[in-house]
């Protein structure tokens, strides 16, 4: 381990709130919802109990060439869009290809390709199956395609840990730079799972909000009337570099990616451990790993999916990790606006945390009208919150089915 400092120099995203990170961030600060009714014929055909979602504000086909759309699964398309934006935002760093890495996670992978090609096999026969079916449906399709687009040869990785995938990938990129394996890494998460089977599965699990009469207010983390999460899609990626590399080229630095903490619950395949033991260990490990005390953390971008059980478990975990110091941490619940991007959520919220630290402003949650008294957190509602001047640090929490807990620490620079 060389333990080099890792800094963030580029951001890119395509989300239900905007086709770029800039549009997404502006919408977030304006308190807009990216959730709307779905217009697909399959919603009615399969009698889905949920009829709304957070679909991309700017469809991938509006941005990519026809051939790119044909030859990549949507999950990889979103990643290529976000990677181009992040790379340009970082000023297209000059870097030895063998020192440039990629780490892009996904929760579900190429579900659209997998199932549409299965339909082709059944209905039209072997000869019509697309020869690119496998390289499109594989979960590492996004990291492979982004490595091709940027000529990255230090390694292209894919972490799969459900809704913690995107945050964990940022951890993978962080380790690549810390260990001296790479100087620059493009990292984050992507998801394109607005597919009937995903709605059917999550709905059968009773995990989704069914507030069909009011999609924009359905995602309401920490509200007493929350009834489940809202499916969304998109991608968020960052360009991270060793501080040395970024300084040498005079790059604009947003913030430092200071640490990652990870743990696993081994409690239940989907339910969070109610006391938050595993999640609190990840949070503490992240804060200690950054060489900070709990009192140094002024802001948390919470996982806060708007499920009845999950939101309370996270609140318990934060209290357990930080005790009274949690009083000094204002909490953003941005899924109230974006919905839940599954494997991309942790990454996108990582971008939000970076921007919050950089611009010293934390977004307010929308739709919280009846705050749940069981939540022992300073949840930002109404007005966005100004963060302190001077040196500050913030935490980004992500949790995934399987019992995965990931916490990232972002420091001002």
């Amino acid at each position: 381990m060389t333990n080099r400092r890792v800094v963030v120099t580029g951001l890119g995203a395509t989300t239900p709130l905007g086709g770029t990170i800039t549009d997404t961030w502006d919408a977030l600060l304006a308190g807009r919802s990216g959730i709307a009714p779905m217009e697909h014929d399959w919603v009615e055909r399969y009698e889905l109990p949920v009829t709304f979602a957070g679909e991309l504000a700017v469809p991938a086909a509006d941005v990519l060439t026809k051939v790119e759309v044909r030859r990549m699964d949507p999950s990889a398309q979103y990643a290529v869009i976000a990677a181009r934006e992040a790379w340009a935002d970082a000023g297209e760093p000059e870097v030895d290809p063998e020192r440039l890495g990629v780490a892009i996670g996904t929760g579900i992978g190429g579900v659209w390709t997998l199932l549409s090609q299965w339909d082709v096999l059944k209905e039209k026969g072997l000869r019509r199956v697309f020869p690119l079916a496998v390289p499109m449906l594989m979960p590492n399709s996004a990291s492979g395609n982004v490595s091709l687009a940027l000529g990255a040869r230090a390694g292209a990785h894919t972490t799969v840990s459900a809704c913690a995938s995107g945050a964990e990938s940022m951890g993978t990129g962080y380790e690549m730079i810390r260990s001296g394996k790479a100087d620059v890494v493009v990292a984050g998460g992507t998801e394109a799972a607005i597919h009937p089977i995903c709605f059917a599965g999550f709905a059968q699990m009773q995990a989704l909000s069914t507030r069909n009469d009011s999609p924009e207010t359905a995602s309401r983390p920490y509200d007493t009337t929350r009834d489940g999460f809202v499916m969304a899609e998109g991608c968020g990626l960052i360009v991270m570099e060793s501080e040395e590399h970024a300084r040498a080229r005079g790059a604009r630095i947003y913030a430092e990616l200071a640490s990652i903490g990870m743990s696993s619950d081994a409690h239940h395949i989907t339910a969070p451990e109610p006391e938050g033991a595993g999640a609190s260990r990840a949070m503490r490990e992240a804060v200690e790993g950054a060489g900070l005390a709990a009192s140094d953390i002024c802001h948390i971008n919470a996982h806060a999916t708007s499920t009845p059980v999950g939101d309370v478990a996270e609140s318990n975990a934060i209290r357990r990790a930080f005790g009274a110091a949690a009083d000094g941490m204002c909490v953003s619940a941005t899924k109230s606006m974006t919905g839940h991007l599954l494997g991309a959520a942790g990454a996108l919220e990582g971008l939000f945390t970076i921007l919050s630290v950089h611009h010293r402003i934390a977004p307010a949650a929308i739709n919280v009208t009846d705050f749940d008294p069981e939540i022992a957190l300073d949840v930002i509602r109404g007005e966005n919150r100004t963060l302190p001047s001077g040196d500050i640090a913030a935490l980004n929490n992500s949790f995934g089915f399987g019992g995965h807990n990931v916490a990232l620490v972002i420091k001002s620079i």
Partner: protein
Amino acid sequence: MSASEQEILEGLAEIINEETGLDPAEVAAEKSFTDDLDIDSLSMMTIVVNAEERFGVRIPDDEVKNLTTVGDAVKFIQSQQG
């Protein structure tokens, strides 16, 4: 009804454009699929299957390796048409 050589060439050019983005004007009879048009074996499979559907012919896998140039493909498709 069978297509003329020119119609087959134009049809192939459209299919190749859809698969690879190549300008249809680039797709001429003397061009090699691999050396000139940079079409890999996976793309070639898709082009073959789309050509079969469009022209109502069967192009066996064993035959595909003999189709070096676009002109070879045009001739083969024409020979298979009723």
